[in-house]
């Protein structure tokens, strides 16, 4: 805007502005450090050192996020970014996923004989984009953040350079990803045309005041399509199985969780803050959520490749999260946030197991290879079982409360049909997750796939994922309260209707478990 340019000229950023992007600064600095070190170090022995630097960077980002949480919330850089409990929640998810993925990558890179140290730098740069996405409140900044994260993940997907499937996965991800970004950008342009601003709050104010033009509707629709591609919601999901199958497993662990969490953060901001005066968004999200759940779960039934199966399952989980989007903001947003956190923990863990078990060239990824794993490596099998049970939504795991909150939020909004579809889908989902568990414990292997002992890095990554998954399943209260608290600052509506109190749910869960044991 012409006036705000004058305002800008009179001021320079304050110290607080820099604190508001502190995690991003830390991640960028460490990313650049990895790049420079990679350039000067001998390629044959730089791997571990670069990974360690990147790991320090990821923990630094967690520290910076915690520091931000102590600091008063507010805007930075002329209302470009906003630090509040909401953004800190997602920053934390992204930074934690980054750290766990780096831990899981140490051994993987060695086994696959990939020497390029850029890998760790790219993970950190991707994390910069994802963090920025969750705190940005200006559409063009969101676009740039989206691209930073996407471009880094395009390269990461093709990191097994000698493998044809990996480069093919990278190509498909790149083409469909940039197609989606163009849609998002067109939506931003139309929104800019309709309201004369790209700041989410200015847009929201402008839309509240007057009647909403066709341009604004079109802009929102385009933005939704673009973001729908990024979170792999049906009918924009076609790239997901191919990309996840071909990309390196730790990278899939990364890109199926952290960017998705960040894009969901953007979607939450865009849908609930821009669109708050418009109640007609429901049917669109309703359809997309129902389609994603159904297509994802049904297609997963017939998969034999475990990576591909989990890719379809991730489409289904995007659908469950979108159910929360169709609900009221006050209960839907915390439910979606909780789901994102739980999904991040369990999915990163599941892919960490897959990447350890896959071996050189990721040969062992089919259902037959997992047969009899329970005998050969009980620890690995138990870990994977925990993640799969959580993905099903069995009580005492994070996945249970995630689904529970989402569906109860939808019920509060009287979306009975959607909840029925969701519950039916969870039942279908249980079948294919259980297939893996059954294969691990009850089937005799035709040909034994070798299992290497779990090294320290991957072990630590798995341990963190298991602990978080169980923590969210046993004591969900703190995380949920934090999510609810963040909503009160977020929505203009600001009314927080508390979900069913967590301790009541826990009590009910305990009786259910007792009943089940009695049978």
């Amino acid at each position: 805007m012409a006036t705000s340019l004058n305002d800008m000229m009179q001021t320079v950023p304050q110290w607080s502005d820099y604190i508001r992007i502190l995690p991003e600064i830390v991640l960028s600095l460490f990313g650049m450090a990895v790049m420079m070190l990679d350039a000067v170090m001998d390629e044959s022995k730089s791997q571990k050192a670069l990974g360690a630097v990147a790991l320090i960077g990821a923990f630094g980002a967690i520290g910076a996020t915690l520091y931000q949480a102590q600091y008063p919330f507010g805007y930075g850089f002329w209302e470009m970014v906003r630090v509040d409990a909401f953004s800190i929640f997602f920053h934390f998810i992204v930074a934690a996923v980054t750290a766990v993925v780096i831990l899981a990558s140490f051994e993987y890179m060695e086994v696959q004989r990939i020497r390029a140290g850029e890998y760790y730098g790219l993970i950190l740069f991707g994390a910069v984009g994802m963090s920025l996405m969750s705190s940005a409140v200006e559409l063009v900044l969101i676009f740039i953040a989206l691209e930073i994260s996407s471009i880094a993940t395009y390269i990461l997907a093709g990191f097994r350079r000698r493998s044809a499937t990996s480069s093919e996965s990278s190509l498909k991800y790149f083409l469909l990803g940039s197609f989606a970004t163009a849609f998002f950008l067109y939506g931003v342009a139309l929104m800019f045309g309709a309201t004369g601003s790209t700041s989410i709050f200015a847009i929201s104010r402008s839309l509240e005041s007057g009647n909403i033009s066709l341009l604004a509707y079109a802009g929102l629709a385009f933005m939704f399509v673009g973001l729908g591609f990024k979170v792999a919601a049906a009918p924009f999901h076609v790239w997901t199985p191919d990309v996840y199958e071909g990309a390196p497993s730790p990278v899939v662990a990364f890109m199926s969780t952290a960017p998705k969490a960040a894009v969901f953060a953007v979607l939450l901001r865009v849908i609930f803050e821009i669109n708050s005066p418009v109640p007609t968004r429901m049917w669109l999200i309703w359809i997309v959520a129902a389609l994603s759940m159904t297509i994802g779960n049904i297609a997963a039934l017939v998969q034999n490749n475990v990576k591909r199966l989990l890719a379809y399952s991730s489409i289904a989980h995007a659908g469950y999260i979108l159910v929360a989007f169709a609900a009221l903001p006050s209960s839907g947003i915390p439910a979606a946030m909780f789901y994102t956190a739980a999904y991040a923990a369990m999915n990163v863990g599941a892919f960490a197991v897959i990447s350890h078990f896959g071996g050189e060239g990721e040969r062992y990824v089919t259902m037959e290879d997992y047969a009899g794993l329970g005998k050969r490596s009980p620890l690995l099998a138990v870990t994977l079982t925990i993640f799969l049970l959580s993905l099903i939504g069995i009580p005492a795991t994070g996945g249970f409360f995630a689904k529970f909150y989402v569906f109860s939020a939808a019920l509060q909004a009287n979306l009975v049909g959607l909840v029925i579809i969701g519950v039916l889908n969870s039942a279908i989902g249980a079948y294919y997750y259980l297939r893996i568990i059954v294969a691990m414990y009850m089937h005799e292997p035709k040909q034994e796939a070798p299992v290497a002992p779990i090294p320290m890095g991957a072990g630590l990554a798995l341990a963190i994922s298991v602990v978080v998954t169980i923590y969210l399943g046993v004591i969900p209260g703190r995380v949920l309260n934090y999510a609810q608290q963040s909503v009160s600052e977020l929505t203009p509506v600001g009314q927080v209707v508390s979900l069913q109190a967590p301790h009541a749910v826990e009590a009910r869960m305990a009786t259910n478990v007792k009943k089940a044991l009695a049978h």
Partner: protein
Amino acid sequence: MVPLFYYLVLSGILFACGVTGFLIKRNIITIFMSIELMLNGVNLSFVAFAAQWHALSGQVFVFFVMVVAAAEAAVGLAIIIAVFRTRETLNVDKVDLLKL
């Protein structure tokens, strides 16, 4: 003075051309060019809206979009070369190890 409407229609047509090209073309490079065409259609509408709202910001966004597009082009062409090295083809229908 050309009315704003004309610019918007042109940018819409450019974007639609890009989408169509993306969907029907089989050569990876052509598909990639279609994406660039989409981005340029968006750029045009940014500039047109900037003129309508008398806001400089719209024109500055175009700079950002251009830079992002260049970065995307660099990465995209590198990926295309990697695919060509393993498959010796630039036809998307033949890049089909992973079934769609």
